[in-house]
């Protein structure tokens, strides 16, 4: 362990950060480095990490982009809690700050993880498909907009994926909270004509979510992921596939099967 910290720092003037270091998922053994960074008014964790990279250790790797809480790049676990480094105020934390990469994803280097598996999930979700009668210029109302707006706030920081124990433990083929939110945003789109419940039930593995609500607690965009997206999506699956009366009705009518139109 390397220490860039003096023996008795003044906590009013400096912040002590412990950062998990290492390259690759398994090759090198991870270790913590400790750094002492001057405290500035209104400072966020990303500012402190930038200070380290610029002044103490240029080999530190961090993923960041907008530094304004909009792009969702600088996700990490700060004192064990999945958060955006750019939105976490240093003065909101007492004492030492420990920063680790998201643990649900393979580590690339230091605080940077490989989140590319998400794009494979994204590609499987049946995309926005306008209703047959939608026309070229849509007419719908603000109330329709407001119903799906919440899900469309997602900045794809993948913190919800990180906190999800189903994904963390690699136990199941579950698409994960981010992608349930995506599906919900499409299902709630006022002009969308697709029913995704068969996909959600089978390929999406929605049944694996056992509603611990961890994801909605940490969402930096305050999307109420479990209550507003996951539970309604589960209800859609139940309505479509497990409701005996509807099942008989559809059998008799010979109507649309799941996975087609709404």
């Amino acid at each position: 362990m390397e220490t860039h910290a003096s023996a008795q720092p003044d906590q009013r003037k400096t912040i002590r950060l412990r950062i998990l270091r290492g390259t690759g998922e398994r090759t090198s053994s991870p270790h913590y480095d400790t750094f002492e960074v001057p405290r500035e008014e209104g400072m966020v964790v990303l500012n402190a990490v930038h200070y380290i990279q610029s002044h103490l250790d240029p080999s530190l790797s961090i993923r960041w982009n907008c530094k304004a809480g909009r792009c969702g790049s600088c996700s990490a676990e700060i004192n064990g809690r999945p958060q955006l480094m750019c939105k976490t105020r240093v003065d909101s934390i007492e004492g030492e700050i420990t920063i680790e990469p998201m643990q649900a994803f393979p580590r690339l280097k230091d605080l940077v993880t490989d989140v590319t598996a998400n794009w494979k999930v994204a590609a499987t979700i049946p995309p926005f498909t306008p209703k047959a009668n939608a026309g070229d210029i849509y007419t719908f109302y603000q109330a329709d907009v407001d119903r799906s707006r919440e899900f469309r706030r997602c900045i794809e920081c993948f913190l919800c994926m990180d906190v999800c124990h189903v994904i963390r433990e690699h136990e199941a083929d579950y698409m994960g909270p981010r992608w349930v939110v995506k599906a919900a945003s499409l299902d709630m789109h006022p002009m969308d004509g697709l029913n995704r419940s068969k996909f959600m039930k089978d390929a999406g593995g929605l049944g694996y979510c056992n509603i611990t609500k961890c994801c909605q607690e940490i969402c930096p965009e305050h999307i109420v992921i479990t209550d507003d997206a996951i539970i309604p999506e589960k209800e859609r699956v139940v309505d479509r596939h497990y409701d005996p009366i509807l099942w008989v009705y559809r059998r008799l009518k010979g109507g649309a099967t799941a996975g087609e139109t709404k």
Partner: protein
Amino acid sequence: MNGSMASGVLDLWAPQQEKESVEVNDRSYDERVCDVLIIGAGGAGLRAAIESHDRGAKTLVVCKSLLGKAHTVMAEGGIAAALGNVDPKDSWEVHFSDTIVEGQHLSNWRIVEIFAKEAIERVYELERYGAVFDRTPAGKISQRPFGAHTYRRLCNIGDRTGLELIRTLQDQVVARGVPFMDEVMTTCLFRDPKTGRAAGALGIDIKTGKLLLFRARAIIIATGGSGRVYQVTSNSYESTGDGIGMAYRAGAELMDMEMIQFHPTGMIYPPGVRGMLVTEAVRGEGGILTNSEGERFMSKYDPKRMELSARDVVARSIYTEKRAGRGSKGGGVYLDISHKGADHIKKKLPSMYDQFLAFADIDITKDKMEVAPTVHYQMGGIRVDPETAESSVKGLYAAGEVASGLHGANRLGGNSLSDILVFGKRAGDAAAKSATAVDLPSVDSKEVEKEISRVLSPFSSTGSANPFHIKEEIASNMWAHVGIVRNAVDLEAGLVEIERLRKDAKGLKAVGPRAYNQSWTDSLQVLDMLLICEAMIRSALERKESRGAHTRSDFPAKDPKWLVNIITVQEDGKMVRRTVPVSTPPQELQRLIKEDD
């Protein structure tokens, strides 16, 4: 992965193969061949990718950040297009006139004409792609007022328009299965030694540090602007102007490099978030600017349009108030929207409400904000053909902020989002068409080897220059010497400093392994940033007048003899400039242009 639970088909979250590690001096590269290579995946790059792919071209998108994180995501207020949903009198003709007039007649009229006409269909198309815009009571796309737009013209999605735009295009790209590689930084463009056509690019796979050689029949640059050369900026980390640098080094012409937009309202407190954007929609929704004396000072500078004057006017007014000692406590001015009530603010400006609460402990439904100008946009860039977005290098296209010609001397709010859709599509279309008409151009392997040596040099450097420090020095130099109000003495001093930093940059040192090494990638960015700064400063010295965003205290008046565009190009390894007159629109367009004053 627990096999017994494999009910689905995703198999995604199982532990993955270890990524191969690369030795620091490894010169090997993987080769990727495509018809159309698109560099950059903001709105312009993604829209180009959709078009190119739909036209049947084998398309590959590479981008420096993760997919969906490009600077487009930061656009807030809206996308300008004359749908006439709220003000039926609006039309492409009025949008055309507004853009030309507020660009201080420096725009290319044909680019503006195409833009104003096609922006309308691009917005409806975006809606058909799945974007959900705010609505009018009649169920149409809603439009809000914005600075210097004659009519209410900005189609918006709360104050998150850019996020919705990029996510919608990203979904379309993913659903189409267009191949993309994110976190790949391109460092150099290659041209066919015989024909001079754009032929390929060298890239770094940032995740592993592995080198990549791309070969293509056509290349589109959509890498955005270079706001990060300034200390106080709303721009993302990746806005370092790599595309402009690469195109310049490949011999492409740049234009209007002196034209940098200072957005009037950036946050000034706390220090860590200085420069973060406060959307113009705050003023669009009725926000009021006041100085330390409580005076609504815009009444002195533009009594007619007040806070909704053009961005260059508002930014200069704030600058003037501060200089006259009427600034706010924190060194800016006050912006107040609290009179609109908490409900309205939280609904129309939710991100602004969150942003001030989270970062500055300010509740904007109750208290004033403190704001000051922040570097926001680059009007200049790669010079392009209006119809095809092709640069002066054959087979090399540019779209979005990286290109020039639309915004002239000042960009109107909301025009950049329609810009990226209109010219992203056009570039994708033209590149795909031209790609089918040519054989795969050749890349000179000696050039590739030379570039690999350049790219890897920071690892073998005997110097100890720190790229993060040099970036900071570049940024403070530009802020101090090439700001809102310029003069020859400052600009010359800025140039001297750039030359000094260029010497320092010879000793740039990369530390650590190749994988995700920012001391390495930032070192390479520094070199292009220095080039871009030089081009900006030399063009600013050349333009001896004040026009739009370019204000010279030593030449305070607008001068008709400067109705020219300044072109910057590399000739025999030297940066040279020439001026070309702005072309006059034909009579039927000329008569549309309505001067306000």
